[in-house]
């Protein structure tokens, strides 16, 4: 029985279903007056963030507190890591405290995987480099299922910086596994090589890509991509790939719009869209809490089978 959540690729569809159904139960808990349950009382979690994060860390911390887990936050400024302690020494030091969960975010792809190979604690990947962000994909999937009933057969468009997005990669793995028609929409500069082998459809044109879409997932565009030659100006990006109400007309009338946050209004998404009834962005935040509670609970009770194929 595996103890970690490193990659969506490791999960079977049954595992994903179990996480979502467990998250549904925990979401119910979150709607109570007293939101705290004693499920993981006596367990200890460390949130080890090598990269700045506000929302993911807050979400994990709150999920841990709702489950009565003891929580320690360990934020490592990148600068001290450069010449300081090695990553593995940091992990071993933390392990020596006898913690049950280590939640890791790291700027280098593969770090949660490497750590999981020697750590006894449950390792949860909270985002590694440009590789994966599995709990984000699970909360997005939960949100889609909540609104649409199921994922299979849906037209799901992911728009934006696929190249640098671990959110996109985890969602691609998760949603294709569940049978969605996944479309990726981006300028060619922001599409990683070989991604077409992931059973997705590639579009460079937004209007074509979102035609008849049930779900549109927009991704954050970082301004510093301009200097790398990935795009010209954010104004031009908005004109061609920014999601506006007008462009959304070709999608299904009941299309939902998602964003992992933080949003750049007027760059990848227009205010009129993110504030509309199509937007489920705040559902994503609540569901993130429920999904992370579910993952913590299932890992501590070793209920995931990990029959997914790599």
């Amino acid at each position, binding site marked *: 029985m595996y103890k970690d959540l490193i990659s969506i690729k490791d999960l079977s569809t049954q595992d994903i279903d179990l996480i979502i159904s467990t998250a549904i139960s925990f979401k119910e808990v979150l709607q109570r007056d007293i939101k705290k349950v004693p499920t993981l009382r006596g367990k200890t979690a460390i949130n080890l963030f090598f990269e700045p994060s506000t929302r993911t860390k807050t979400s994990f911390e709150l999920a841990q507190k709702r489950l009565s887990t003891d929580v320690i936050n360990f934020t490592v400024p990148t600068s001290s890591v450069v010449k300081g302690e*090695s*990553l*593995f020494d940091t992990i071993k030091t933390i392990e020596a405290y006898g913690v049950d969960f280590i939640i890791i975010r*790291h700027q*280098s*792809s*593969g*770090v949660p*995987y*490497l750590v999981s190979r020697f750590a006894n604690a449950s390792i949860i990947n909270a985002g*590694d*480099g*440009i*590789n*994966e962000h599995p709990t984000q994909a699970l909360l997005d999937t939960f949100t889609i299922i909540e609104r649409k009933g199921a994922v299979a057969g849906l037209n799901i468009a992911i728009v934006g910086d696929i190249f640098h997005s*671990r959110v996109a*990669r985890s969602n691609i793995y998760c949603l294709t596994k569940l049978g969605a028609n996944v479309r990726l929409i981006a300028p060619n500069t922001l599409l*990683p*090589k*070989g*991604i077409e*082998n992931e059973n997705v459809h590639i579009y460079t044109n937004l209007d074509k890509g979102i035609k008849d879409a049930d779900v549109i997932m927009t991704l954050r565009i970082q301004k510093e991509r301009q200097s*790398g030659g990935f795009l010209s100006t954010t104004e031009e990006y908005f004109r061609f790939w920014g999601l506006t109400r007008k462009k959304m007309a070709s999608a299904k009338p009941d299309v939902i719009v998602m964003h992992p946050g933080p949003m750049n209004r007027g760059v990848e998404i227009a205010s009129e869209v993110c504030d509309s009834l199509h937007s489920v962005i705040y559902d994503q935040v609540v569901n993130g809490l429920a999904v992370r509670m579910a993952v913590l609970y299932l890992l501590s009770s070793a209920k995931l089978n990990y029959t997914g194929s790599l």
Partner: protein
Amino acid sequence: MDIILKNGHIVDPSAGINTVGHIVVKDGKIKKIILASGIAEEETAKDMQIIDVAGLHVFPGLVDIHVHLREPGYEYKETIESGCKAGLKGGFTTLCCMPNTRPPNDNKTITEYIVQKGRSLRLCNVHPIGAITKKQDGKELSEVGIMKDSGCVAFSDDGRPVTNSLIMRRALEYAKVFDVPIISHAEDVYLSDDGVMNEGYVSTHLGLKGIPAEAEVIMIKRDIELAALTGGSLHIAHVSTAGGVSAIREAKSLGINVTAETTPHYFHITEDYVNGYNTSAKVNPPLRTQKDVQAIRQGLHDGSIDCIATDHAPHHRDDKECEFDRAAFGISGLETALALGLKLVEDGVLSLSTLIEKMTIAPSNILKLGKGTLREGADADIVVVDLNMEFTVDKEDLVSKGKNTPFHGWRLKGVSVLTIVDGDIKYNLKQVNQ
């Protein structure tokens, strides 16, 4: 003591020898080779050490024109001594070491230090390769002539390729005056853009930044054009791509003065070895695809690639046991190269004789070392190899300080049992001493 190696199967491509015979070594030189089963008169002489190597193969000592010995400056990764000992174990008697030491070998003081250290150790023959430009920063030419006089046999900025085409042109023109080749680590660093493995499906799958094959191909093509323009002598280091092989093949057909090497990892393994964020498979140029492996093998077979080097790049475990994108590039290669080369013979890519040519006389000729031969009068650099002895590569068994090998656990065949440099036995696996 003088030596007679009796009854070995001698393969010396430089002399066209591929038969059983005896080798008589006297005063550090090859005195003569007696073919067939004749008796050497010296056998009865006193003070001759007679070693029966029946059933074993005898080759000229292997020549590696691309190693990193890390000294001075990175002695925690490797020293000239530990690198030479690794070389001897691997059957190498001559090593040419790249200039990316600390400080870099861009002046005669460093060159002389390496040469003196090599001589005083009396292990392998050590020949330094000098930096093309001062500090390897691609701006001002080093003192090529003075460094050649001090012992440099070629010039290269190795891991920091000369990005400025004008400087590369001048380097090829200037080095021609002194009749020394320029070795190109062909990489367009703008196109590699801090990538850490081959660009493709596997890099996307692992979330790692990729280096496209074109980063190598473009630079090989540029340097070939500059070699054509200048008539300079150009050697392409560690070819890893199908496109690179094609470009070199075409250049040779046009009569351009270019030679090329590849290394065992490019003809045996692919980018798939990076799976699991395996830093021992992190190397530059990166491991490529099966298509490239096939093209490299074809290039070796048809002569587009002249020789096999190791690009022996030992690293301390601290530089490898870390995040993949922070880990050092490089593979420790001296102790596995011969057996990995012999696997090409088993796979039908090269004959034994051609393999040995590509690990002895061919690289020696490229850098004009006068090594890699058993001709009468040559320095007695010899390796005796048991082609049937099998072993499992265990990184902890490596003599090199660098345990960074992606071949850990491979079952291979072919072990050097006796390595002789200048007529002295420097490595003796079975303690043969009749």
